[in-house]
């Protein structure tokens, strides 16, 4: 196996928010790596903390504790100018193509904003700026005639392409993709996913792909982390997780997806109850309340991680 270079390493990352009712455990003790050129899919439902995770990595939210190593150095300890430099290497694509673009900026202005902000081009160097903007628009498949359009004049798919072009403007190495296709129609979703794969191959990008859609994550990820209420539940290569889903939650998630085939009547693992609140959680497995296989001991003590096969880890007492 080729020696994979680790681009991003997360160690014991925690993010707790203060609420009047107690601390909200948004991200609780997460550890994983992402290799260069690969895609790590982060899967979970609402409230699992996947978006918070993405933002912590980019330091749009300050983590409570833990370490984040990018290309070997701890990014949480860097100074302001170093952080600004780091932004050229780590970027983000947002979920909502409507609120992630400044309504007062044209397509060209939105795409060149990072170039100007980082001082890569001077404001007067319009020729070079325009060339670069054209280049980026070509890269993401946006027709030239939209250069001076405003976001509200374009559909979701095109807006998302602007978001991607903006993220690529600084030639980053790593991009956090926060549910980039969830708000798009099926046929457009496929266009954007293909685009993202092409860009990854051409530019050598590394993705952290956050989504709730298991079919999308299977298609695009090399490795997957499944989260539930801030904790990691299962982690491994995409292939092994789909072949051998081990954690009861992963199994429930997989079986809950409606199969687009009327001849297959799926047997669903219908979970009991609702997601409980991530505020003031006690010890023990947070999924136990809804788990069809829960035992008394699951509610009590801390979780331990078990390796069910090579590189495939599960956080469940069942495997101990």
């Amino acid at each position, binding site marked *: 196996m080729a020696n994979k270079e680790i681009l991003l390493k997360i160690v014991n990352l925690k993010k707790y928010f203060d609420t009047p009712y107690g601390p909200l455990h948004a991200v609780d003790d997460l550890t994983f790596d992402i290799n260069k050129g690969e895609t790590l899919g982060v899967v979970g439902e609402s409230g699992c903390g996947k978006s918070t995770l993405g933002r912590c990595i980019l330091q749009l939210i300050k983590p409570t504790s833990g370490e984040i190593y990018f290309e070997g150095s701890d990014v949480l300890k860097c100074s302001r100018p170093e952080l600004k430099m780091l932004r050229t290497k780590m970027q983000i694509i947002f979920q909502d193509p409507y609120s992630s673009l400044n309504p007062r900026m044209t397509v060209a202005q939105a795409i060149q904003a990072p170039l100007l902000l980082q001082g890569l081009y001077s404001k007067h160097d319009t020729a070079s700026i325009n060339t670069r903007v054209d280049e980026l628009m070509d890269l993401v498949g946006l027709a030239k005639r939209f250069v001076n359009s405003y976001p509200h004049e374009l559909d979701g798919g095109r807006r998302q392409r602007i978001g991607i072009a903006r993220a690529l403007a600084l030639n980053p190495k790593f991009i956090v993709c926060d549910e980039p296709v969830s708000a798009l129609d099926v046929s457009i979703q*496929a266009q954007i996913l293909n685009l993202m794969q092409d860009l990854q191959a051409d530019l050598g990008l590394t993705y952290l792909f956050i989504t709730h859609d298991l079919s999308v994550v299977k298609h695009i990820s090399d490795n997957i982390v499944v989260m539930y209420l801030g904790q990691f539940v299962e982690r491994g290569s995409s292939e092994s997780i789909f072949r051998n889903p081990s954690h009861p939650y992963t199994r429930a998630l997989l079986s809950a997806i409606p199969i687009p085939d009327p*001849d297959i009547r799926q047997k669903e693992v219908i979970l009991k109850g609702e997601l409980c609140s991530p505020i003031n959680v006690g010890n023990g497995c947070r999924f136990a309340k809804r788990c069809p296989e829960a035992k008394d001991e699951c509610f009590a003590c801390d979780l331990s991680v078990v390796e069910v096969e090579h590189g495939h880890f599960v956080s469940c007492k069942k495997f101990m």
Partner: protein
Amino acid sequence: MSNILDIKELSVAYHTEDGTVYALNNIDLELEDGETLGLVGETGAGKTTLAKSIMRLLPVPPAKIEYGDIIFSGENITDMDDEEIRAIRGNKISMIFQDPMSALNPVLTVGEQIKEAILAHNNISEDEAWSKSLEMLETVGITKNRARDYPHQFSGGMKQRVVIAMALACNPQILLADEPTTALDVTIQAQVLAMMRGLKEKFNTATILITHDLGIVAQMCEKVAIIYAGEIVEVGNVHDIFKNTAHPYTKGLLEAIPSIYADCKRLKPIDGLMPDPTIRHEGCAFSERCIYCDDICIHNQPPAVQSVGTDHKVRCWKPLCSTLS
């Protein structure tokens, strides 16, 4: 089986300052008693406009039913006045929307809201209505003791159940469900869909399930209609739609979905975008994006109904399957 709903040549347009938007063009649709019909389409296809037209909830102006008839249970409801249509809404035809947050009144308890829905159409005492309301809550899986709770105390999935309870409280003949589970998490969606299947067996309500998710359609519906750019391009039973696909758009949709069961390296999207609804196109609405497109497709509107099987109709010059297979 008789048709509880018959839509004939329905055309709806929005007349705005910036131009006329042709939302629905010549829609023909039939719904049988007790049947679940899936209405599949993407954003802007006209699914919500169609549902709202049936309920006469369209804002008139700027919307206008230009042409066509909506026949419910033998009666033509297209030109009914406000009072008559109000007797039907909520009572004989109910609708549930995508966002349960905005469907529920935040200052009334859920029990109250269901009770109100019942009292609006039934001449019974308040106490009777209240106990019926509690019954409905139990039917959708919410314990009676939560009847006095307010909407904000419920999660998304539970709110949607309350909305469904309200919609079914008067035992309507038709339920219009507009993307009822799109805003819910996948595991919650599974719960709600399972519950809806149970309700279907119990009440036998004819349902039009509007969604963009072909998986939900495959698991929940008997009949499927595909809507594109304001037109029904294909309609048939669920098996035919998935296995004997006739319209290139339907085929495109089926191939564009990433699947957890198949291993494909590259998805097959449908190139291009839905056409501008302010422009009346000469030929087939899908012609620009269709890989089988021919001259005849560009210049001539395909015939409205072309049978390609039992109860399987398509609107296409070159359907992918022809006659009974």
